[in-house]
C-alpha cells in the first residue's frame, strides 16, 4: 500500500505539482522551436520521454558503481547514448521528420530537465521508481509542449496534425500566421504558464502550505 502511494505521488508531482516547465521554465530551449506543428512536437515529446525514462533507469542502476567525482560526466554520456539511439533511428526510419526537427533532437542532451532528474532523483532512488519518475517528467513536459503546439497549429494554420479543423480552416477564420512564427511560441507559452501558475498559487493558498 505504502509503495503504491509513493509511486502515485512520484508520478503526480512530476506531471503537475513540480512540472519543470511551469515551475522553473526549464528545458524549453530544445523543444519550443518545433511546436509550430503538433506532429513534430509529439515526436519530440516521444524523444524526451524515451531519454528521461531510460536514462533515469540507467543512472539509478549504475549509482552504486559510479565514483562521485565523475558522476556528472557519466550522466551526460548515458543521456547522450539514448539521444544518439533515437536520432539514428529517426534518421533511418523517418528521414523527413529527422530533417524537420533539425538539430533539436541532439539538443535534448543539454536539456536541463533530463540532467536535473538524473541528479535530483535517479542518483538516490531505486531503478524502477527512477524509471517512473523519468517517464512522468517526460510526459509532463511533453503535455505542456503539445498544448503549445495545439494552440499554435490551430490558430496559425487552422489544422491539427495536418487535418483541417471545422471553422478554423474555413474562410470565416482569418489565419493568425504570427502563431506559427517564433513570437507565437513565446506568447502561447507565456499564457499557458500564466494560467498554470495562477491555478497552482490559488491552490497553495487554500492549502496554506508554507513554502520550503
Amino acid at each position, binding site marked *: 500500500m505504502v509503495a503504491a502511494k509513493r509511486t502515485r505521488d512520484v508520478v503526480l508531482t512530476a506531471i503537475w505539482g513540480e512540472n519543470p516547465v511551469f515551475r*522553473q*521554465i*526549464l*528545458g*524549453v*530551449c*530544445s523543444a*519550443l*522551436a518545433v511546436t509550430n506543428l503538433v506532429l513534430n512536437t509529439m515526436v519530440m515529446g516521444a524523444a524526451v520521454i524515451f531519454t528521461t525514462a531510460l536514462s533515469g533507469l540507467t543512472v539509478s542502476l549504475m549509482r552504486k558503481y559510479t565514483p562521485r567525482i565523475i558522476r556528472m560526466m557519466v550522466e*551526460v*554520456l548515458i543521456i*547522450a547514448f539514448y*539521444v*544518439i539511439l533515437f*536520432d*539514428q533511428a529517426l534518421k533511418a526510419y523517418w528521414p523527413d521528420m529527422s530533417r524537420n526537427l*533539425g*538539430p533539436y533532437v*541532439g*539538443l535534448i*542532451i*543539454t*536539456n*536541463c530537465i533530463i*540532467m536535473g532528474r538524473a541528479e535530483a532523483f535517479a542518483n538516490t532512488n531505486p531503478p524502477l521508481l527512477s524509471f517512473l519518475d523519468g517517464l512522468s517528467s517526460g510526459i509532463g513536459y511533453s503535455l505542456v509542449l503539445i498544448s503549445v503546439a495545439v494552440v499554435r497549429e490551430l490558430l496559425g494554420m487552422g489544422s491539427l496534425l495536418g487535418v483541417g479543423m471545422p471553422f478554423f480552416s474555413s474562410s470565416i477564420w482569418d489565419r493568425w500566421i*504570427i502563431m506559427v*512564427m*517564433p*513570437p*507565437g*511560441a*513565446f*506568447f502561447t*507559452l*507565456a499564457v499557458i*504558464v*500564466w*494560467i*498554470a*501558475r*495562477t491555478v497552482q*498559487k490559488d491552490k497553495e493558498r487554500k492549502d496554506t502550505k508554507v513554502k520550503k
Partner: protein
Amino acid sequence: MSSSSTGMLHLAIVLFTAVFTDNILLARFLGMCSFLSVSRQVKTAVGLGFAVVFVMTFTIALDWFAYRYILEPYAIEYFRFILFIVIIAAFVQFIEMAIERYSPVLYQNLGIFLPLITVNCAILGASLFMVIREYNLLEAIIFGFGSGVGWMLAIVAMAGIREKLNSARIPRGLQGPGITLIIAGIMALAFIGFTGVLTGR
C-alpha cells in the same frame, strides 16, 4: 575581384542573418534557460553576453575541425553530440584556468559566467547548425560570432527592460518567467522586421 566581392557579400549576409533575422535566441529558441534566469541586471547580462560571444566563436571553429578531420573521415558523424560537448567543456575549462592565471581582473568579471556556458544549449546548437548547413570554416566562424552577438544583444535588451519592470504592477501568475516570455515574444516580432532588409522587399 568580382568573385571575392560576392564572397564578402555572402559572408556579410551570413553575419547579418545570424545577428538579426535568424537570431539564435529569438528565432531558434536556444539558450533560453540562462536568458530567463540571468537577465535581471544589465551588468551581469553584458558579462555573460561577452563570454558567450567569445566561447561560441572559438568552439565553433574547433568543432568544425573536429567534424571535418575526425568525424567525417571515419564516418562516425553520429558521435558528434558527445565530441562537441566534450570539446566545449574542455575549452571552457581551459579558458577559465588561463584567465584565472593571467588576468585576475578579467576573471572576476567573466570567470563566474564560464561554468554556466557549458550547459548553454546555444553553444552546442550553433555547432549543430554549422554541420547541418555545411558551412566552410570562414562561414562557420562568422556564423558563430554573429550568433553570439545576436544572443548578447537579446539578453542585454531584455535585462534593460526587466530593470524598468521592477516598479511595474504585474499580475501575480505572470510575474517572473511569464512576463519575460511575453517581452521575448515582442522582441522576436521586432527582429522579424529585419527580414525585409536582406530581401529588399
